[in-house]
């Protein structure tokens, strides 16, 4: 009671502001910050890795997920990140990262159908049929380039800008078939493989690029036992 009596409204406001400042400045003095951008196909696995990295390292991480081309464009336009994990190493050209690990992990493609159509049978030649509604990634983005080199010409009805958009179309059963990453099958229960398929390439190969001590430290963590286990759990090969 004495506090609220003795402080006028404006003073109270300043008092709270002061406490807030005290807390926040306390935090930023102790913790380092790291910004990581990663291909959207890595959203789940990288988020999990980052969470366990924060626990062991006292570094506060900010993650940006998006299509690799989109992220690379952001970097060319001056966005600053410490680590960039891209689904296409060609996108690193012209970006000044000091350390680059090529072929860090891989992701193969799989033709999927909506869980709603689990009883419907499809076959590989359906990809060439006009009657089937098919969503694939657009050529030019990593999953689209991989789709083209693995499947050739597909009679698609929509070319999406990233794999998550294809996944959304299939999981909502707006299309009959879609071509997504193998790992998406694990993360999205509303889609299933359209027919039994083997993990083969041509596929997508991810590259990890970093700069500065903060970035390099995180990349080192990516080779730790914990990180490897997380990658495996999410279906990503990691030696």
């Amino acid at each position: 009671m004495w506090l609220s009596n003795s402080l006028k409204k404006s003073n109270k406001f300043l008092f709270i502001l002061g406490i807030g400042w005290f807390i926040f400045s306390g935090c930023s003095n102790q913790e380092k910050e790291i910004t990581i951008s990663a291909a959207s196909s890595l959203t789940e696995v990288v988020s999990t890795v980052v969470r366990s990295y924060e626990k062991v390292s006292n570094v506060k991480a900010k993650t940006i997920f998006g299509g690799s081309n989109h992220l690379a464009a952001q970097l060319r336009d001056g966005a600053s990140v410490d680590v960039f994990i891209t689904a296409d190493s060609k996108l690193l050209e012209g970006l000044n990262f000091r350390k680059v690990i090529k072929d860090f992990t891989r992701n193969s493609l799989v033709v999927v159908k909506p869980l709603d159509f689990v009883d419907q049978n499809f076959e590989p030649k359906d990809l060439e049929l006009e009657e089937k509604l098919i969503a694939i990634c657009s050529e030019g983005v990593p999953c689209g380039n991989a789709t083209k080199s693995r499947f050739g010409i597909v009679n698609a009805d929509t070319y999406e800008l990233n794999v998550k958009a294809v996944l959304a179309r299939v999981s909502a059963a707006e299309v009959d078939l879609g071509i997504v990453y193998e790992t998406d099958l694990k993360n999205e229960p509303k889609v299933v493989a359209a027919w039994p398929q083997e993990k083969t390439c041509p596929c997508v190969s991810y590259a990890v690029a970093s700069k500065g001590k903060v970035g390099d430290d995180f990349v080192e963590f990516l080779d730790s036992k914990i990180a490897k286990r997380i990658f495996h759990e999410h279906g990503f090969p990691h030696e």
Partner: protein
Amino acid sequence: MNKLPKTVVLIALFAILFLLSPLLGLLQRMPWSGLVDLLGTEVVSDAFFLSLIVSFSATLIVLALGTPIAWFLAKAKFPFIKLLRAIVLLPMVLPPVVGGTALLFAFGRQGFLGKWLNNWFGITLPFSTTGSILAAVFVSIPFFVVAVESAFRSINEDSEKVAETLGASPSKIFFRITLPRILPSVIAGLALSWARALGEFGATITFAGNLPGETQTLPLAVFLALETNPEAALALSLVMIVTSLAILIPFRDQWLPSK
């Protein structure tokens, strides 16, 4: 005309400069030397003609559907009219991507209306030019309704009443007396909604998808090119700017006659 206060002129010039600078930025980056080759590609011409078809069809539908809506909202009197007016404006406020998702929930293959269209008539609206037009109508209709509704409300009805006592039918009164008087507002509304339809991106890519020649309008082609071929994106933007200016300059004089 009176002399304008200096401060107003200054602020206006600043504001115009602000609006102009992004445009200058585009022009300054434009790959002028390779422009002819870029514009000659099939992707650009497909997107250009598709955009014209989609935006003009959408505008015609907006005229046909928007006029009755505007008339109804201006004249009808019942308790929930204010709510109804707000609902008609919602597509203006909704982020277009949300609008597109909502369209999918209604007219998509699994949507509550789309399911029925699909089962009974075999019609699938997404992934078709019709779907693109539908998305464009949805986002652009409020611009037309706002312009025309206020015109309907502001005219006095004396002439209509006289015509009625002289025995003219309601439809004759509407087409011969009311419509000519609100024509400037109708044209203004059409120009606004056409411009909105031409620039439409979010609802289209969400609802109609992205297929060259079918649903890939200029804004979609620009967005895709921005990530894969920035020079083509600039060329496509130039096409959009030139097209809109070509249509909007004469239109604007129609509804705001310059002296």
